[in-house]
């Protein structure tokens, strides 16, 4: 037998073992499986086509059409501080960075660019403010918490960056930076604005409180307009690159999201309601602190924090902790702390983690009072 066959055998044994021992006639298991499929069904019907798919197309378009080098210029050593902080705080949405480029970008900004503060702002905001996560939060958990998530992520990223820069003073190194060159696409600014506007239009119509038919018709109109614009104005290679990038994002995000939804749906009936109500039910300092710490140390792959949050909210989590968790969540996790530690060292990493937890707690507390 070859190695491939051995692997296959192991898989068969594992799957068989699971099927052999699976407690199919136990009540809790039946409820959980049903709940998992219920939640998957809900996402498939309400959120994936109308929200996530357009958001993925937008993310793909951003990575093709937004000129990275021009934005990163504002994070260089010569730019004004308030400009570099504000650009760094929204960079997650405009750069559509994948996790593998965050660290080199972070280190470049810190050592040869705008310095530690803006670099930390970028490190926090990069994963927290991505288009897909924000719109999916709005679609699943409601407009209010989605909006709060953007606003507080931006605010917090700047605050954490400023505080780090105040506590630690670092000298910049000399030497140039090498950036990824952006490709020329030969499209006028007007066309690009229209293109992005139409795509964001789809997401906005999806969020409106109107009848379902009207909503679908509106979204269809916008979608057709996007297709027409692309067919008439874009060169073939550009369209191909755009679709390629979109496919790359989908490949990474969708399978993980569905696994996350399945797990969240499965554990939902098993979560002890009284325990959750006691811990994060009231909007207290302790409740928000627990949510922040849980978010900071647990690993959620992008987007999976949303179904997990949904499960917790259904079991009595208050709105404050429900915001604190996704604020501290995507930017920090245990494996990610270990990597940051290699670059920043123990002391700075510890302070960074503490600051994120403290600020997220305060933000949750404030939001819970509104």
């Amino acid at each position, binding site marked *: 037998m070859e190695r491939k066959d051995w692997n296959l055998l192991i898989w068969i044994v594992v799957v068989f073992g699971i099927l052999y021992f699976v407690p199919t006639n136990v009540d809790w298991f039946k409820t959980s499986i049903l709940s998992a499929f219920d939640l998957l069904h809900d996402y498939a019907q309400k959120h994936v086509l109308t929200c996530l798919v357009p958001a993925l197309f937008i993310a793909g378009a951003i990575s093709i059409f937004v000129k990275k080098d021009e934005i990163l210029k504002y994070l260089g050593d010569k730019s004004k501080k308030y400009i570099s902080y504000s650009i760094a705080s929204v960079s997650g949405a405009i750069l559509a960075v994948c996790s*593998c480029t965050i660290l*080199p*970008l972070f280190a470049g900004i810190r*050592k040869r660019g705008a310095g530690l503060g803006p670099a930390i702002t970028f490190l926090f905001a990069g994963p927290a403010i991505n288009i897909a996560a924000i719109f999916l939060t709005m679609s699943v958990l409601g407009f209010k918490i989605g909006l709060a998530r953007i606003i507080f992520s931006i605010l917090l990223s700047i605050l954490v960056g400023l505080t780090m820069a105040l506590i630690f003073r670092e000298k910049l190194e000399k030497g140039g930076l*090498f950036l990824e060159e952006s*490709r020329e696409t030969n499209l006028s600014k007007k066309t690009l604005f229209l293109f992005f506007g139409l795509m964001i239009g789809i997401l906005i119509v999806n969020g409106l409180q109107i009848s379902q038919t009207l909503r679908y018709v509106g979204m269809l109109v916008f979608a057709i307009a996007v297709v027409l614009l692309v067919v008439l104005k874009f060169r073939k290679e550009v369209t191909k690159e755009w679709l390629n990038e979109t496919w790359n994002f989908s490949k990474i995000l969708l399978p993980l999201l569905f696994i996350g939804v399945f797990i969240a749906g499965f554990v939902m009936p098993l979560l002890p309601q009284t325990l959750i109500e006691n811990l994060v039910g009231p909007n207290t300092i302790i409740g928000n602190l627990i949510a922040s710490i849980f978010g900071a140390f647990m690993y959620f792959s992008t987007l999976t924090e949303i179904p997990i949050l949904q499960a917790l909210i259904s079991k009595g989590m208050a709105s404050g902790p429900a915001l604190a968790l996704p604020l501290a969540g995507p930017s920090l996790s245990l494996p990610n702390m270990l990597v940051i530690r290699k670059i920043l060292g123990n002391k700075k990493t510890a302070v960074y983690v503490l600051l994120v937890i403290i600020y997220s707690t305060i933000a949750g507390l404030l939001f819970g009072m509104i």
Partner: protein
Amino acid sequence: MKIKIIGSGCPTCTKLHQMVLKAKKEGHIKAEIEYSKDINELIGLGVMGSPALVVDGKVKKVGMPKDKEELLKLIK
């Protein structure tokens, strides 16, 4: 000549490595090829992005070359 590909182990980085290996196999270049996953090395060079294509210690390109022609132009 020494060609080094530095990346974070992401799919694009492995793709670039394969592309360079293939160019050598087809006889377009004669070079020592090395693949590194050391992020600190990227940082030391001041590269903001991955992968980086480094020829004899000089950064030639950050990101993926458009096609084989561009790659060959960079490493020849």
